[in-house]
């Protein structure tokens, strides 16, 4: 049975929607395979707008890994904006992939990558447009297996009724193994139907199938027990860890869209994982241990990627890029190699104390001088001890002085508001810090036109972190602290300081909903569905987000069950409490997390295991992994001369 493109039905709708180019596909380096020549077919979804989803590294990596297998096909799909959704409903056009414009319902697997929980409603839109039953229980052998991945998959309980399965951790090897299971099951004539297919996935221990696990609740609303409800299914599900990054040099050929996207550059992941131990950071906790890509691996990926994409900027990606053991050599040798080719380098996330003048110089040598962003996260020394972000104001001033002296005029600083134990005073010190940055910048540069932007996000406690037990700060307190902070920034005898400080923040309401979806359990699922039925879409976009829609649905669904929005968010958990994700194993010992939570409350810091002895978080022994870091002392391999004004030299164009 071949599957037809729905493009002929879609095309007449495109002149009537905004930015139609996002729906036509045709990206450079995209793959469109012949349907009938393949056995296992994946649709990969990033549940946000195309411009946000296309540059996503996770989707790009899995797309390429899967398409490299001869009998496996992978295509991509993104959330369609409400204008097109309306037309698709009117004209009966199903949710489609942008590669082959094939209907989602025809695929074996629908993999959805969740970087944030605010994409849940968009997944429901896609399922509904595709004609796939919203509830996993209503699906048959003819429907795709809906698989969640990404960081939110470490607690997929709020969407447990809507997905068939979830994979925790790195996806590269998991998608290959799942493809093998499907191929074998199909070859055997699909024995046991969908149930058997899901059981085969579950019994590997690395794929979570929510419907194979039952929760019971106590009269007070707390979870009583959780466990498997059938044989062949393990008690706990382990996260996946890809160890040798050099063996996985993806994406080799980055996708380059015709449409504008949020990241107009190619990215190379220089290491994965982080052991800095910031207590609020879910990414740092669930991606351990640190695994570095070698300097040669990085150099090779960049040259291939630049030649294949034509991008003018390379982002050296990781959770804290300046922490790579050879970051100095990497930036220097890359800057040498691409001299005169207008190829810029950027470090999207840089630790304050790891940045220095050498790094600043290498980053600004070729091409553009991109913005500098640092994340002190907390305004006061005290709160930074609570969150284990061990940078001092002195470090920050030293670092920004170096940057301003090297010609930068603007620095952006990230902070959080609503952290555990936080007081008004902790937040007000952000204003002092920003003013000190401007003062230091003026001295270092000898100029007046120094700017600093402070960007403040609401803190959301996340599963598998020491703060998973914390009470989330209520939106009114957040809003009041931010108001006081704004006054403090502007009220000063030296008015010129405040004028040079930009302040960006959102009100605290979206954070509370993110909190509900982050630490919620299965009972929250019907809230998501109710919000979606009431029109909820694109909840990560302030112009589409409706707090009232969420609170109304939460009251209606949760309160009859004896729980509430507050119960899931602003309530502090106890040590004994069964958490909805206890059966999902990130490798971290629950005891260690609890001790780290107690250390936070006592304002005690925790070192990084890359430079001090192991502190027994539990990941390496549980997962059979180890830290993989340099320095290797190796150098970038020389490459044939780069071009003029381009990283590529084309012999056909050489002067006659």
């Amino acid at each position: 049975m071949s599957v037809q493109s729905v493009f002929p039905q879609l095309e007449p709708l495109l002149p009537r929607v905004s930015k139609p180019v996002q729906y036509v596909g045709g990206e450079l380096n995209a793959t469109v395979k012949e349907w009938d020549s393949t056995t296992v077919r994946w649709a990969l979804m990033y549940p946000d707008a195309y411009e946000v989803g296309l540059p996503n590294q996770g989707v790009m990596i899995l797309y390429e890994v899967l398409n490299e297998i001869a009998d496996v096909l992978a295509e991509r799909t993104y959330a369609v904006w409400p204008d097109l959704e309306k037309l698709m409903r009117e004209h009966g056009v199903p949710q489609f992939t942008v590669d082959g414009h094939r209907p989602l319902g025809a695929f074996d697997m629908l993999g959805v990558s969740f970087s944030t929980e605010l994409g849940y409603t968009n997944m429901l839109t896609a399922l509904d447009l595709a004609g796939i039953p919203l509830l996993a229980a209503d699906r048959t052998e003819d429907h795709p297996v809906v698989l969640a991945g990404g960081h939110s998959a470490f607690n997929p309980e709020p969407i447990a009724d809507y997905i068939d399965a979830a994979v925790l951790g790195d996806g590269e090897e998991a998608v290959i193994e799942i493809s093998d299971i499907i191929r074998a099951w199909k070859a055997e004539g699909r024995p046991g139907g969908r149930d058997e297919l899901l059981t085969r996935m579950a019994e590997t221990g690395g794929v979570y199938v929510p419907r194979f696990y039952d929760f019971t609740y106590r009269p007070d609303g707390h979870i009583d027990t959780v466990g498997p409800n059938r044989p062949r299914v393990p008690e706990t599900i382990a996260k996946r860890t890809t160890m040798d990054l050099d063996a996985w040099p993806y994406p080799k050929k980055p996708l380059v869209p015709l449409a504008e996207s949020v990241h107009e550059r190619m990215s190379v992941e220089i290491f994965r994982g982080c052991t800095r131990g910031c207590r609020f950071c879910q990414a740092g906790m669930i991606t351990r241990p640190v695994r570095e890509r070698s300097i040669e691996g990085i150099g090779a990926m960049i040259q291939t990627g630049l030649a294949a994409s034509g991008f003018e900027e390379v982002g050296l990606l990781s959770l804290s890029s300046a922490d790579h053991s050879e970051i100095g050599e990497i930036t220097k040798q890359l800057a040498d190699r691409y001299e005169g080719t207008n190829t810029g380098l950027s470090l999207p996330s840089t630790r304050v104390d790891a940045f220095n003048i050498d790094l600043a110089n290498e980053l600004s040598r070729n091409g553009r001088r991109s913005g500098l962003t640092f994340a002190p996260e907390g305004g006061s020394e005290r709160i930074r001890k609570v969150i284990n972000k061990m940078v001092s104001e002195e470090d920050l001033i030293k670092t920004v002085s170096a940057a301003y002296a090297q010609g930068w005029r603007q620095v952006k600083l990230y902070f959080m508001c609503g952290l555990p134990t936080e007081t008004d005073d902790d937040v007000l010190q952000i204003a002092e810090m920003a003013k000190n940055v401007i003062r230091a910048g003026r001295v270092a540069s000898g100029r007046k036109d120094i700017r600093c932007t402070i960007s403040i996000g609401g803190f959301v406690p996340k599963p598998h972190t020491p703060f998973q037990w914390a009470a989330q700060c209520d939106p009114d307190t957040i809003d009041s602290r931010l108001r006081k902070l704004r006054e403090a920034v502007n009220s000063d005898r030296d008015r010129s300081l405040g004028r040079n400080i930009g302040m960006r923040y959102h009100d605290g309401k979206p954070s509370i909903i993110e909190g509900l979806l982050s630490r919620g359990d299965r009972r929250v699922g019907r809230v998501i569905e109710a919000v979606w039925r009431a029109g909820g879409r694109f909840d990560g976009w302030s112009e589409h987000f409706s707090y009232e829609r969420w609170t109304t649905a939460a009251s209606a669904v949760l309160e009859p069950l004896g729980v509430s929005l507050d119960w899931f968010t602003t309530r502090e958990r106890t040590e004994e409490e069964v958490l909805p994700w206890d059966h999902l194993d990130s490798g971290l010992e629950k005891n260690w997390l609890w001790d780290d939570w107690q250390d936070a409350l006592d304002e005690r810091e925790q070192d990084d295991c890359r430079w001090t002895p192991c502190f027994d978080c539990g990941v390496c022994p549980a997962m059979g992994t180890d830290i993989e870091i340099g320095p290797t002392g190796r150098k970038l391999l020389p490459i044939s001369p780069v071009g003029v004004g381009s990283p590529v030299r084309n012999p056909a164009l050489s002067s006659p």
Partner: protein
Amino acid sequence: MQKIRLRYAKRGRLRFTSHRDVARAFERALRRAGVPMAYSQGFNPHPKISWIGAAPTGVASEAEYVEVSLVERVDPATLAQVLDTALAPGLDVLEAVEAGPGGFAERMEASDWRIELPGVDPGDLRGAVERLLATEHVEVERLTKDGRRLIDARPAVIRAVVLEGPAETEETPIDDDAPGRVGADMSYPERSCGILRVVVRQTTPAVRPDDVLSALRVVAALEPPVPAKATRLAQGRLDDDGGLSDPLALDRQAGLG
């Protein structure tokens, strides 16, 4: 320093690209092809590329023009070939010549458009066009970033004729999304199709195919049942017979001499 002038086409699905999309695609293709581009100076150097107008989003074209500056001399034909290979199918380089004397932009006096109107009876279309040509001023409304504005679409229309359809619109229907097919066109085989050929003078603000259709709506209540498909067939200086001269002719001549 060498300047090269290029003619390119924007075809099939790629007609949904905006001018900014096309510009980014060109810059990246030039880098992939290893073209020795000249860059501007300063903190944010940009490749020196001069765009000569641009077909609107949603409109196809066989006659778009751009001028690029290089720091090393190259053979224009080779450049055309390597750049075309690097560009997505549907953005197709048709010709490249070394820039001769004289400005480029002022050679684009008018455009020749072909507008297909599936489901519109050619007789009805002919009647509407006659009424348009018999009118001196037709105010049409256009949505811009700053809200609605009124423009007079009539004076810029120099010539308009209706062709017999639907035979001319028959094109290969697409049945798959093979990579090479994104530059292919859709077709409406089952429907009758009115085809309008219209020569429009380049004015400020520009009168686009959409504005001409709005004018037909105003004078004759013509309402196409599905969106029209417009293609720019040529740009150039108006000659005495109302035809358009090839804007690259002068450069080609200079190259020969």
